[in-house]
């Protein structure tokens, strides 16, 4: 199946085109979108199976040999990211059935979501720097569309911040591409591995690496450029915010991992800067969350602090630390998307996103309480859930590298995360319901279409925690191949001299 690496991109794009014809019919549009999402999931699983069997799959688009044409290359990291994208895509599409109203369907919610999924998968699969830029722009355009579509098309200030900063990020990115092309004469990542190391003007190369770091740092919401995220994410509709929270910042993290393992293997300055940035990102994110009382704002700040952990794993650049970063990516995407979906259910059951106005959900909605409890305490790092193992790997890698201060920071941020999650638990689920809620807002019967994805993702979180052994083994293997990318380069360059 030679086309397999392209299918996770082509299938959602094809379904998106098909969905344009169903815009006036929400039920049919949802059915087609669901079929598309399940197909996406099937293709992603097939890709994963093939990658486990063959390690690297490469598709030279248009049969141009690398490094002259664009290639799609799926290694273990790409495959696992595509698989999770498909999982979240499916969960969000199922949830959207009861949460997205007809005006939003008419505005093109389903086709744009499919395009967004295709763009994310394209970014994970491409082996070419300029093509990565193109996929970033596809994602950006789709995310803009979903951003201004929300249920209350008000509060565009957050949208403006999101748009401005993300546009700046892509501008930095393409500037760096121009510089790198000028220095090396190639944009194929595998080809760059040797050619970037051979560049004589190290200062200019470091400058280009820093530009890329800034670009992907904005995307990943790293300190000090994370302000757009809490400003924008709570204005979205719930399924969209779940997809954004799960996937979009992680594309930035993935790009950072790919750049600093494959392309710039010898730029140490960037890694030193990343260490400091990671620590500050963790701290600022979690402290920002402590001061919030709106559920989705709390979660938004926690995205930031958790991205800090992943970048810390990259900045240490040992096999254990990188494996920790990969485990963290997998765990975090599932948990975070799930928590955003839960926040929508809390709004339905309690009538508000604000923790001050809801309460008593533990006694009235037991399943929802379970659906929140599992991802929340996985995020906070309770054993035996997935978050505990992810944090443990990162902290252990910090100690092994002699970065004791960073290990302390990581542990401390874990404690503060517990504080935040307990705050949501005690306010929304534990305390008695305040009577200030407008009863017309409360819909106590939660639809199975909305609870289903939440419980399914919670189950995945539990399963990840229980079967952590194989997951860590897989991540270790992926991390070793990232640090020694010779096999990847050989596969992409296909025996070229």
């Amino acid at each position, binding site marked *: 199946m030679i086309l397999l690496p392209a299918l996770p991109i082509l299938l959602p794009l094809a379904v998106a085109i098909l969905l344009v014809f169903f815009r006036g019919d*929400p*039920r049919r549009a*949802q059915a087609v979108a669901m079929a598309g999402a399940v197909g996406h999931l099937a293709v992603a699983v097939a890709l994963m199976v093939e990658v486990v069997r063959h390690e690297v799959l490469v598709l030279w688009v248009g049969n141009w040999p690398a490094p002259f044409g664009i290639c799609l290359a799926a290694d273990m990291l790409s495959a696992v990211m595509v698989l999770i994208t498909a999982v979240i895509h499916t969960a969000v599409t199922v949830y959207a*059935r*009861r*949460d997205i*109203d*007809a005006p939003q369907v008419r505005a093109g919610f389903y086709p744009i979501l499919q395009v967004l999924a295709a763009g994310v998968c394209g970014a994970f699969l491409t082996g070419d720097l*300029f093509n990565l830029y*193109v996929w970033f*722009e596809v994602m*950006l*355009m789709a995310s*803009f569309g979903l951003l*201004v579509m929300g*249920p*209350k*098309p*008000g*509060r*565009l*200030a*957050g*949208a*403006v911040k999101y*748009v*401005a900063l993300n*546009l*700046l990020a892509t*501008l930095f990115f*393409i*500037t760096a*591409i*121009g*510089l790198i*092309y*000028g*220095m090396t004469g190639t944009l194929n990542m595998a080809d760059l591995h040797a050619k970037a190391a051979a560049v004589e003007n190290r200062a200019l190369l470091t400058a280009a690496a820093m530009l890329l770091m800034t670009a992907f740092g904005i995307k990943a919401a790293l300190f000090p450029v994370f302000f757009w995220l809490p*400003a924008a994410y*709570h204005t979205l509709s719930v399924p969209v915010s779940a997809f954004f929270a799960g996937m979009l910042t992680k594309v930035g993290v993935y790009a950072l991992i790919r750049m600093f393992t494959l392309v710039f293997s010898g730029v140490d300055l960037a890694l030193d800067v990343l260490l400091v940035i990671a620590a500050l990102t963790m701290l600022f994110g979690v402290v920002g969350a402590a*001061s*919030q*009382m*709106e559920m989705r*704002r709390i979660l938004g700040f926690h995205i930031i602090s958790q991205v800090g952990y992943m970048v810390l794993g990259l900045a240490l650049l040992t096999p254990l630390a990188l494996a920790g970063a990969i485990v963290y990516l997998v765990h975090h995407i599932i948990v975070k998307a799930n928590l955003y979906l839960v926040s929508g259910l809390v*709004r*339905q059951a309690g*009538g*508000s*996103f*604000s923790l*001050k*106005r809801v309460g008593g959900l533990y006694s009235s909605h037991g399943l929802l309480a379970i659906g929140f409890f599992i991802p929340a305490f996985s995020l906070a790092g309770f054993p035996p859930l997935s978050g505990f193992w992810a944090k443990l790997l990162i902290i252990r890698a910090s100690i092994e590298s002699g970065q004791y201060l960073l290990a302390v920071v990581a542990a401390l941020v874990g404690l503060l995360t517990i504080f935040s999650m307990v705050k949501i638990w005690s306010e929304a689920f534990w305390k008695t319901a305040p009577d200030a809620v*407008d009863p*017309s*807002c409360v*819909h106590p019967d939660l*639809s199975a279409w909305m609870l289903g994805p939440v419980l399914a993702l919670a189950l995945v979180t539990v399963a990840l925690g229980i079967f952590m052994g194989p997951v860590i083994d897989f991540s270790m293997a992926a991390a070793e191949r990232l640090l020694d990318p010779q096999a990847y380069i050989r596969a992409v360059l296909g025996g070229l001299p």
Partner: protein
Amino acid sequence: METLLAGLVGLLFAAAIYLMLSGVLVRFVFGFVLIGNAINLLIFAAGRMAHTRPPLIPDGQAALTSPAANALPQALILTAIVIGFAMITFLLVLLYRTYSQTGTLDADDDAFLEETGRVAEACAVDSDAEVGP
């Protein structure tokens, strides 16, 4: 030629960043247009510049013989221009919508700033009735 272009790129970058930092959204869009052009010129300059022939293989030959122009930067710039158009279009629509809602395009204006922790206003009506079970 390359020195001249490098100077021009630097000048465009400086002007664009000045405009983008001004806090007024119309200026941000103008800055975005300028910086897009600056980056395109940068890519163009990166692909080496010289007075050469077009990269066409003459009749009866199997490969390029003489130094020829570099076609790849032009392809990259073409892509970047097209994407830039889409972005500018979107930005202008967003500006228009923002202005019609807030009555201002100054990012420091009070109408633009949200007080943090503001409680979301009354719940959006869920239209389950339209979608069906």
